């Protein structure tokens, strides 16, 4: 599993360890850090530029001559990108800078017009695949700021080997909790506040669980009138640095919350539900379902399905369906935050040969008590980044609370097994 050091730092504001120290502490506490590397290339001398003026080049009509404000001064630069417009914030490589692909910036004359530096594409900056148009930044960025700072590119990625007995470590909050237990600082959970409005969620969706063994808990929220668009750059970049492709704001938020809390979520396009209800049931033997990766799958009665009462919309805890997938035209969302039992998830995942970030966590064991927090966190982010009206209340179908085993610790037994006497006080402090 990949972790962002910056993200850990946001969760533990008083974290005093640098990335190398974090790696060492985690390795020596049982979660081996296999590698530690920078998230992105961090070229110096690339700054946020504010395009003040765009004129057609006197000698070439497909080139533009721009005046770009970079804080203290203005530079004149010639650019051929089709999407360049006045007023944009762009990434400008200053003269003398070497881009990740080895290209060196020089002051030059292009067809008789002076040009200093270059307005860059994602690809030229080494942070994405788009190479034919320039990267346009959010308007809030201040001209002259370094790009690495504006886009929070300076980050370290830790690759961890999480042992199967520690599913609680499969998230940033999980590892942050671990670091706090090791004395690294104090955990600060992310913001979950949002506004509710309109009608009661319960009058908009009814949840029924037929198989309470496979699905002990299912919570749902409905958010109406969201605007699906690309995620902000900071979110897309962080997800991509952790190996998850950015798709759209709402889909990215479910992935973000999964990496943050360790709890898998799913967002459905609610307008594709035939009925206003969720029914969790076993698949009929041989039942067919088209998952959102475009593959038609044949299920056995081992598989658990999320349905709209009749038609399946997802294979529980593993993958959603193509038909109910959130798309550019989605307006109303049903947000699922559930708990699926590990053996059921594991059997289905094995049968179908289908492993996802979600199935990986459910089959190792998610936390049923984490479902509500994860749902609230995602709702908060959806309202912040996609707008929309969050209906009142959470529909929480949790017929029988999952019992947590009590662990008895016998000090005498500890001494026998460990071979040294551990004072009561020290033992208590460690378990805190």
């Amino acid at each position, binding site marked *: 599993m990949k972790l962002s050091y910056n993200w850990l730092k946001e969760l533990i504001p008083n974290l005093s360890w640098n990335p190398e120290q974090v790696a060492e502490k985690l*390795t*020596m*506490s*049982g979660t*081996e850090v296999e590698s530690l590397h920078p998230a992105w290339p961090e070229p110096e001398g690339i700054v946020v530029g504010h395009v003040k003026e765009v004129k057609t080049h006197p000698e070439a009509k497909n080139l533009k001559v721009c005046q770009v404000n970079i804080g203290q001064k203005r530079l004149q630069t010639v650019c051929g990108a089709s999407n360049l417009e006045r007023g944009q914030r762009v990434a400008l490589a200053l003269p003398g800078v070497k881009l990740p692909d080895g290209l060196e910036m020089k002051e030059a004359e292009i067809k008789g017009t002076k040009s200093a530096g270059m307005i860059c594409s994602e690809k030229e900056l080494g942070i994405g695949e788009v190479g034919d148009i320039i990267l346009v930044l959010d308007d809030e960025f201040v001209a002259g700021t370094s790009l690495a700072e504006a886009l929070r590119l300076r980050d370290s990625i830790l690759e961890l080997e999480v*042992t*199967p*007995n*520690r599913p609680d470590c499969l998230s940033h909050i999980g590892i942050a909790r671990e670091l706090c237990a090791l004395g690294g600082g104090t955990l600060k959970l992310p913001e979950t506040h949002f506004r509710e409005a309109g009608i009661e969620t319960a009058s908009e969706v009814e949840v029924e669980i037929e198989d309470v063994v496979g699905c002990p808990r299912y919570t749902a929220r409905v958010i109406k009138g969201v605007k699906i668009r690309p995620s902000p750059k900071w979110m897309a970049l962080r997800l991509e640095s952790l190996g998850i492709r950015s798709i759209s704001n709402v889909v990215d938020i479910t992935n973000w919350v999964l990496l943050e809390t360790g709890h898998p979520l799913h967002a459905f396009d609610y307008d594709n539900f035939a009925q206003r209800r969720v029914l969790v049931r076993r698949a009929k033997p041989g039942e067919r379902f088209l998952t959102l990766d475009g593959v038609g799958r044949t299920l056995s009665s081992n598989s658990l399905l999320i349905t709209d009462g009749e038609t399946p919309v997802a294979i529980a805890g593993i993958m959603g369906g193509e038909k109910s997938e959130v798309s550019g035209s989605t307006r109303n969302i049903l947000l699922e935050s559930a708990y699926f039992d*590990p*053996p059921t998830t*594991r*059997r289905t995942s094995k049968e179908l040969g289908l492993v996802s970030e979600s199935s990986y966590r459910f*089959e*190792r064991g998610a936390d049923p008590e984490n479902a509500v927090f994860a749902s609230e966190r995602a709702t908060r982010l959806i309202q912040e980044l996609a707008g929309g009206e969050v209906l009142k209340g959470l529909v929480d179908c949790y017929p029988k609370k999952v019992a947590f085993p009590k662990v008895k610790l016998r000090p005498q037994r500890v001494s*026998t*097994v*460990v*071979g*040294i006497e551990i004072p009561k006080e020290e033992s208590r402090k460690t378990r805190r």
Partner: protein
Amino acid sequence: MTTQPPDLKEIEKEAQDLLGECDTPRKLEEVRVKLLGRKGLITGVMRELGRLPAEVRPAVGKEANLLRERIEAALAEKKRLTSEEKEVSEPLFDYTLPGRTPWLGRSHPITQTIIEIEDIFRGMGFEVAEGPHIETDYYNFDALNTPEDHPARDLSDTFYVDKGILLRTHTSPVQIRVMEKKSPPVRIIAPGLCFRRDTPDASHVPNFFQTEGLYVDREVSVTDLKGVITAFARELFGPKIKVRFRPHFFPFTEPSVEYDFSCMICEGSGCPVCKRTGWVEISGAGMVDPEVFKAVGYDPEIYTGYAFGMGVDRIAMIKYRINDIRLLYENDLRFLRQF
């Protein structure tokens, strides 16, 4: 200009005389050069042919060719005779030559390593135990607290022979087989082959050697485990070696650790072998899980124990500074003769 045709008869006589004197291969070669060499008698005749008048040329040429063939035949006959004479005249066998030492086989470096490991542990009171390569699900997984649905079964990709029958993925099944037959105290090591579905590369092969260790008695503790592993490391690699234990997870031990030896190649300062960490991972260990004791009918309230594994190949690689595990299994004599 015309030339007299050569006196072929005279030349043949001269050649016969020369041949008659040959009695060794060396002399024969000298004669061959005199007759047929670049400046030889016969060669000279052939060369002269071109200068003869056209009307005599065919007749003389034919004679000359016949002469050359006769001489060549005579030379060949003589050569056969002289070489036969040589063989007969030289001794067949020199009884005074020293005899050739037959090349001795030797133990494979892995065998040498296993013998060394066994010697060290015997010295600490361990017995050597063995188990079958073909195992059942029960001994390889279930009895070791790794049920069907357990995610730990993901840790190893297994070669199945048939349903429920497999090539053992570790030497740990020997623990179960020994404990089923014997009451505590148990103190064994079990070296042997293990199998996993790995694609061969510099550090993986689909069959490899492990050594299992197990000690069960009253009041066996983590300190005993650390002690025995450290003593083993010092015995094998010398007193300067350091050992470190990191918490880990195995289904059949609790608590579990992985243990590393300080890198013997760079002595901890960082090199490619230890990936610049100064430590080389050896294997896993831990305190036997009470569930494992229950499977073999030991009372976990009375007995505790430790178990450890170690990669024999890895130890051999460090000991002999071998950088590619595949070398150990290719059995190239040029490689094996070095040990």
